[in-house]
C-alpha cells in the first residue's frame, strides 16, 4: 500500500469533486480530503491523502495532470510522539539513515529529524505507533 499527501490546484474550469471521484473509479485509489477550498469561479485547491498501489497512484497522478490539475506533493515530515515512545529500539532495525539511533550507555532512542529521509519504514515497525507522518504546511494551507 502506497500513500502520499498531495496538494491539487484546480483551474476554474475543472469540476473538482468529479475529477477526484474518478481516482477511485478508474484507478482504485482511496482518498481522504484533508482540506479544500472549492470555488466555481476562481481556482480552488484540495489537500488530499491518496492511497493505493504504487502503479495506480502514478496513473492517478498523471490522469490529474491531464485534466489540467496542478499536482504538488505536500512537504512531509516524520515526527515522534515522545509521550508514546517507550525507547524499545525496534525502529532502529529498519531506519536506513540512522535518524533513529541509540544513545549509549543509557540505551535511549534518539530521533534526529535532520537525518530522516521520510522513507516511512519506521511507522509500522514501531510497535507503539509513536512515529507519524505529518504535512509540513498543512496548518497554513487549511486556513
Amino acid at each position: 500500500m502506497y500513500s502520499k499527501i498531495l496538494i491539487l490546484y484546480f483551474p476554474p474550469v475543472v469540476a473538482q469533486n468529479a475529477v477526484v471521484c474518478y481516482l477511485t473509479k478508474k484507478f482504485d485509489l482511496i482518498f481522504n480530503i484533508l482540506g479544500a477550498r472549492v470555488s466555481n469561479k476562481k481556482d480552488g485547491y484540495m489537500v488530499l491523502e491518496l492511497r493505493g498501489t504504487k502503479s495506480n497512484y502514478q496513473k492517478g497522478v498523471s490522469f490529474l495532470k491531464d485534466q489540467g490539475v496542478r499536482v504538488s506533493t505536500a512537504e512531509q515530515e516524520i515526527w515522534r510522539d515522545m509521550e508514546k515512545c517507550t525507547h524499545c529500539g525496534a525502529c532502529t532495525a529498519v531506519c536506513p539513515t540512522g535518524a533513529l539511533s541509540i544513545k549509549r550507555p543509557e540505551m535511549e532512542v534518539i530521533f534526529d529529524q535532520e537525518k530522516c529521509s521520510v522513507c516511512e519504514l519506521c511507522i509500522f515497525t514501531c510497535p507503539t505507533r509513536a512515529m507519524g507522518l505529518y504535512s509540513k504546511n498543512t496548518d497554513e494551507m487549511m486556513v
Partner: protein
Amino acid sequence: MTSYKINKTYGEINDKIKKGDAVVVTAEEIIDIVKEQGPVTAAENVDVVTTGTFAPMCSSGVFINIGQFKPVIRTTKTWFNNVPAYSGVAAVDCFLGATATSEDDPLNKLHPGEFNYGGGHVIHDLVAGKKINLRAESYGTDCYPNRRIEKTITINDLPQAVMCNPRNGYQNYNCAINRSDKIKYTYMGTLKPGIGNANYSTSGQLSPLLNDPFFKTIGIGTRIFLGGAQGYVTWSGTQCKKDVQRSLNGVPLTPAGTIFVMGNLKEMSPEWLVGQSIRGYGVSLSVGLGIPIPILNEEMVKYTAISDDEIFTQIIDYGYDYQQGISKSYGQVSYAELKSGFITIKGEKIQTVPLSSMIKARKIADLLKSSIKRGKFLLGEPQQMF
C-alpha cells in the same frame, strides 16, 4: 548445608523496611558495590536489590467480570472494542488475552499486516480510563434468558478485572537473525535478509529472573511490581525450565525460567501496560515488571551483582531454522556485546537491535527502590519454591 557469614530473614528485612531503615539499591548499582566491598560486606550493608523489565509479553491477559444485566445473561461470547474475550467460564466472566486481534483485522492477508488494535490495546485503554464498547452474546437458558447485551463501559464499571499472565519475565531469550534472502517479520521484530540485523530482548543485568538464576528467593507469593501496581508471583510460568545449560555464575545460556503473575488491573497504570502492534506478527502487550531480591546472604548478593558481560545468549536463525523447530546456535554472545550496537558473526559486523526498553526497566527498578525505602512495599515471602 551451606553456611553463610551473613544470614537475614524476610521478617528482619521487612522490619527494617517498615522502619524506613532498609538499604535498597538497583541491580545496576549493586554491581560496583560488590566489586568495591566484596560480597560479604555488601550483603551485610544491602538489604534489597531491585530489578525491572519492560517488553512485549504475549502471554498476558485479564480475567474480567462484566457484572450482571437485567434480564440476566450467561455470556458465551464477549467482545471489548470488537476484540473477542474467551467466555467459556461462568456467567459473566471472561478472559481477555493480550494477543487477541480485533474481529475485523485483516491480519496477514496483506502481508506484513499492521495489527493496529487488539487485546493489548484494550488493556491499555482500560487502565487509561477510556470508554470501551462491551458486547456479549448467549444462547439463552431458563435461568439466564438474555441473549445479547451491548454497553459503553470504563474500567470502573467492571466489578473485577484481574491481570493474570501465565508466562512473563523470560529468564534469558534468543538473539534473532535472518539467514534467508527475504525480510522476516517476527515476534522478535523485523529481521533483514542476509543477517541484516540481530534483535534481542532483555534488560540484562537489570532483568528480574537473571538476578536470581536458581529461583532461590522468587516463588509463589513473591510480591512484585506489575503494571505499576503491586502484584504477585502466583505459580511458575508456562514453559518454565530450570534444567538448562548455565555459565559458571549460574545464569542460563538459553531461554529458561518464567513466572506466572497476577495483580489487580484496577490499580495499574497505562504507562506500564502498553498495547503493541508487531508488524506481520500480531498484537501484544508490553508489561512493566519488577522484582525485589532480598539479600538473605552473600550468595544472593553475588547473583544480583552479575553484569551484562557475564550474561550470554544464543544467536538463533529465524530465516530458516526457527520455523522448522531447529534451535541451532550461530554463536554465543554477551549482553554487553549486544548492547554495544554491533556483534560479529562469521567475521561480519552486524547491527544489534534491542526490543526491550532499558529506559523503562531502569525506571521500574528506581520506582521499586523508592517505594521499598519509603516503607510502601514489603517483601512477600514465598510460600512454596518452584
